[in-house]
């Protein structure tokens, strides 16, 4: 497999993990998720040790999982506590358990062997904070996760693929600044647009009528968490000298980029906003139009995956200035994959 291991990945939204058994393949590893009576999220390998039947096809007995084929029964810690027609339980009857942490409304799972340090999980505090409203969804992608990384690192595609929603001519025309923090493993791409057209996505949600100053500051923490700090303000409205920017509108766009198999991906998308907090129409509008934008990407990336599948080995693509951040992201991902 080609994924960075020994990493935390977004496996689910908190509310997706509950009484029901949730099956999700992450980085090629089939996993079953559920929540114990005490409220803790649990992740077990989705393979019975007996004849490999998926445990997600079985049922729960309290906090225990009962295999749907012959009834092997497992504790949340993976220990088998019952097998059919005998009292002796084989010593090796145990399914692997995955470390799980819930943070910022996301369920993170550790894929790998090394030290699963919860402090290494990147943060997205807006998803679970006072003063923010969040809309979100998840789209399964029939494309490799690298294509989604490429897509999100280069926002100039907004002008062409998302015109009429978030794209305006200026996005593709504005130069970017890119930086890589080699030690922290973070790629940043910034684009600052002054006195530009306001795309419908923001005009309709903020109520701004005229032109805007628009900032896009990407912060990608490979492999899994992508943040886009988006600032929208009426043209000329600068942050105060003390840095106070509360007169502007802010949207924190978050993606969990989680590889499922080599050619499929979980595309977790979220939009948190600090304006129109009590306006359900804005919430509905942002949820619907952002899903439309995400689906435009999904359709394009699924198509790209098909193209890649038919092309000869070693096909040479061409990179231009707008790809500076995407290339940096690829290099960090490659380094992480090589190290794991």
């Amino acid at each position, binding site marked *: 497999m080609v994924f960075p291991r020994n990493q935390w990945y977004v496996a689910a939204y908190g509310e997706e993990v509950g009484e029901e058994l949730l099956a999700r393949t992450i980085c090629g590893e089939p996993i079953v998720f559920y929540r114990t009576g005490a409220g803790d999220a649990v992740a077990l390998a989705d393979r019975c040790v007996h004849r490999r039947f998926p445990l997600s096809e079985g049922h729960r007995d309290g906090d225990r999982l009962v295999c749907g084929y012959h009834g092997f029964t497992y504790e949340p810690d993976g220990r088998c506590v019952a097998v059919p027609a005998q009292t002796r339980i084989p010593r090796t009857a145990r399914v692997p358990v995955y470390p799980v942490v819930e943070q910022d409304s996301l369920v993170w799972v550790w894929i790998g062997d090394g030290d699963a340090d919860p402090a290494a999980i990147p943060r997205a505090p807006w998803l679970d904070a006072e003063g923010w409203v969040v809309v979100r969804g998840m789209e399964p992608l029939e494309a490799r996760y690298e294509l989604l990384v490429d897509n999100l690192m280069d926002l100039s595609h907004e002008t062409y693929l998302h015109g009429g929603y978030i794209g305006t001519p200026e996005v593709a025309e504005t130069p970017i*600044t890119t930086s890589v*923090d*080699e*030690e922290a493993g973070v790629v940043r791409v910034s684009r600052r647009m002054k006195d530009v057209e306001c795309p419908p996505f923001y005009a309709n949600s903020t109520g701004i009528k005229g032109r805007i100053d628009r900032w896009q500051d990407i912060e990608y923490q490979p492999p899994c968490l992508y943040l886009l700090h988006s600032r929208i303000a009426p043209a000329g409205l600068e942050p105060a000298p003390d840095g106070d920017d509360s007169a502007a509108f802010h949207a924190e766009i978050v993606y969990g980029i989680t590889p499922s198999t080599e050619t499929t991906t979980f595309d977790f998308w979220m939009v948190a906003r600090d304006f129109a907090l009590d306006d359900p129409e804005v919430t509905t509008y942002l949820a619907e139009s952002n899903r439309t934008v995400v689906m435009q990407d999904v359709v394009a990336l699924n198509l790209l995956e098909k193209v890649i599948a038919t092309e000869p080995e070693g096909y040479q693509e061409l990179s231009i*200035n707008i790809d*500076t951040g995407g*290339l940096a992201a690829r290099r960090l991902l490659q380094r992480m994959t090589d190290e794991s």
Partner: protein
Amino acid sequence: MTSALLQVVWSPGSDHLTGVCHCGAEYRADGPVEVWQWLLAHPDHEASIEAGID
């Protein structure tokens, strides 16, 4: 030790990229592949400082 910052700035009004290494060396390049190659060559890019294109 925040010295591992590599930066690439799109030179205003041009198609050039300027790479700035954490050692302070700068290089002007025509495209991203070239600029990353140069940045990642650290510390072997001393000689190339100001060796940019046109």
